[in-house]
């Protein structure tokens, strides 16, 4: 029988420590919407999304009311549009982005992911058209998120695509220059992208997925921090155990909500993503958990070890709490979306180089990092290449969501607003990577033996 203490613990987690369900994301396959006539394909896409996700927002709100836990986002991810659109002969996929945007508005969601291409080994005709359409698509739509997978452990790094992505990011920043280059905040460049990620901006519904599934992303950095507050001076054995227990509880709620949403929508349950996802709100920060472990400021020496422990303990606790775990599952470190990270960058404790080291042990990568607007496309590509190399060699997902904020430089700040937060502009290395990036071609897949 549940006792009063258990009930108060749950209520405190929700009310004081900001435990919430970060997203219920419906993954919808659009593979049956291919058509040699682009307009017909878009009609099918619009109809399918609006029919399948018609009740998504309402069901999310009902569950929120009955269980008393906030469900922050209801979203949709779709099959990478490059796969669907290339059956038609159009030379730009802008119209497809507009269709996704309209469908998102109709069903009342704030983001739809899947304006994507998987080019880790090479580009098809459709992939090229999609990549070229990204800047205009992100500038002209407000709900559409794009992602491009440029590398994977099995096939290496497509350096032509890496070079191209640097240029695409620069162009997107220019086209959205009136709004702090915010278009780049809706674009992720991945290595080892996962097919069932419910979190934006990198969500898409992979080709190996079912017709329609419900994936849920949980959150709760504040709950983990609160649990550690009573452990001052205790050993890491105790810290790791406490994080595991807390992650278990958080994930159990995610599992419950995922099953409830899946039953009410008549759509199979896919996965729970165990991620600790911060927001710019005070008390909802991953950086503050690391500091609670004993670091003066996030970014000082010891941060990578602290993050490694956190990430691993979250996975261990969460895996037992859910029947299917997937997505990115771990601790996110998006700079602009984490109040503690923003402060750490502001006071000079957290550099881009340290962030890169942290991405070796966290669940995603360089996320929501703002850099000077005059950063060259070759430098952006080189940052992507470094991050992809970490993912490919270590057999993990890494991503880059970087914003060269037009007209701004080190010392200034970009304000994105809402969940995207604000980001101090971080300096990049001033030496050139141009000749390196201009080589193009592919970096071969790594060997999986002789691990040292």
């Amino acid at each position, binding site marked *: *029988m*549940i*006792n*009063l203490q*258990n*009930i*108060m*613990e*749950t*209520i405190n987690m929700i009310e004081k420590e900001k435990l919430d369900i970060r997203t219920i994301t419906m993954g919808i396959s659009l593979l049956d919407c291919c058509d040699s006539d682009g307009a017909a394909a878009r009609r099918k896409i619009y109809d399918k999304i609006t029919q399948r996700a018609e009740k998504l927002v309402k069901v999310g709100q*009902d569950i929120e*009311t*009955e*269980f*008393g*836990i906030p469900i922050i986002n209801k979203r949709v991810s779709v099959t990478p549009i490059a796969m669907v659109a290339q059956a038609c002969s159009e030379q730009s996929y802008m119209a497809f982005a507009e269709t996704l945007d309209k469908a998102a508005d109709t069903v009342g969601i704030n983001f739809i992911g899947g304006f994507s291409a998987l080019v880790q080994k090479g580009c098809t005709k459709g992939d090229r058209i999609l990549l070229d359409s990204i800047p205009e698509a992100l500038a002209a739509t407000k709900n559409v998120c794009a992602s491009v997978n440029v590398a994977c452990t099995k096939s290496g790094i497509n350096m032509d695509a890496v070079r191209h992505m640097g240029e695409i990011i620069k162009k997107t920043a220019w086209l959205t220059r009136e709004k702090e280059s915010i278009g780049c905040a809706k674009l992720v460049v991945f290595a080892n992208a996962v097919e069932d990620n419910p979190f934006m901006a990198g969500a898409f519904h992979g080709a190996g997925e079912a017709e329609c599934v419900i994936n849920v992303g949980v959150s709760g950095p504040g709950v983990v921090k609160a649990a550690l507050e009573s452990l001052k001076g205790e050993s890491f054995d105790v810290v790791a155990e406490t994080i595991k227990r807390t992650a278990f*509880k958080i994930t*159990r*709620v995610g*599992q*419950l909500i995922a099953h*409830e949403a899946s039953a009410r929508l008549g759509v199979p349950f896919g996965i729970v993503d165990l991620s600790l996802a911060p927001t710019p709100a005070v008390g909802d920060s991953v950086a503050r958990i690391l500091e609670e472990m004993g670091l003066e400021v996030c970014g000082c020496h010891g941060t990578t070890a602290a993050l490694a422990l956190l990430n691993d303990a979250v996975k261990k606790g969460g895996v037992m709490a859910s029947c299917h775990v997937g997505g990115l599952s771990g601790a996110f470190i998006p700079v602009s979306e984490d109040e503690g990270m923003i402060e750490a960058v502001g006071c000079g404790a957290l550099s881009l180089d340290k962030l890169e080291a942290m991405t070796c042990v966290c669940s995603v990568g360089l996320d929501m990092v703002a850099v000077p607007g005059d950063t060259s496309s070759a430098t952006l590509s080189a940052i992507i290449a470094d991050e992809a190399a970490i993912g490919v060699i270590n057999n993990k997902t890494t991503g880059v969501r970087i914003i060269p904020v037009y007209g701004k430089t080190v010392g200034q700040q970009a304000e994105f607003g809402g969940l995207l937060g604000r980001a101090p502009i971080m300096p990049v290395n001033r030496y050139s990577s141009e000749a390196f990036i201009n080589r193009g071609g592919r970096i071969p897949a790594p060997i999986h033996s002789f691990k040292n």
Partner: protein
Amino acid sequence: MRAFVTVIGGDKVGIIYGVTSVFKETNVNVLDMNQTIMGGVFTMMVLVDLEKMNTDFQGLKSRLEEAGKQLAVSIRIQREDIFNSMHQI
């Protein structure tokens, strides 16, 4: 469907009466009840059965919130499952 109603706030005469009156009006049956003063704060949890209630969940929730306002306490209602899944394996 079963749910936990939790009442937290300053102690005064009539809180239990005020809350259970809503249950009577909405035909909600009380299965278990536990009340104490924690750190000087009135704290109560009530396990209720909603099978035969004569309103919907949102309706009951609004009535309880209204009663909470009049009694100057905070009243929440949440389905039992969220506590079970978090605290029981």
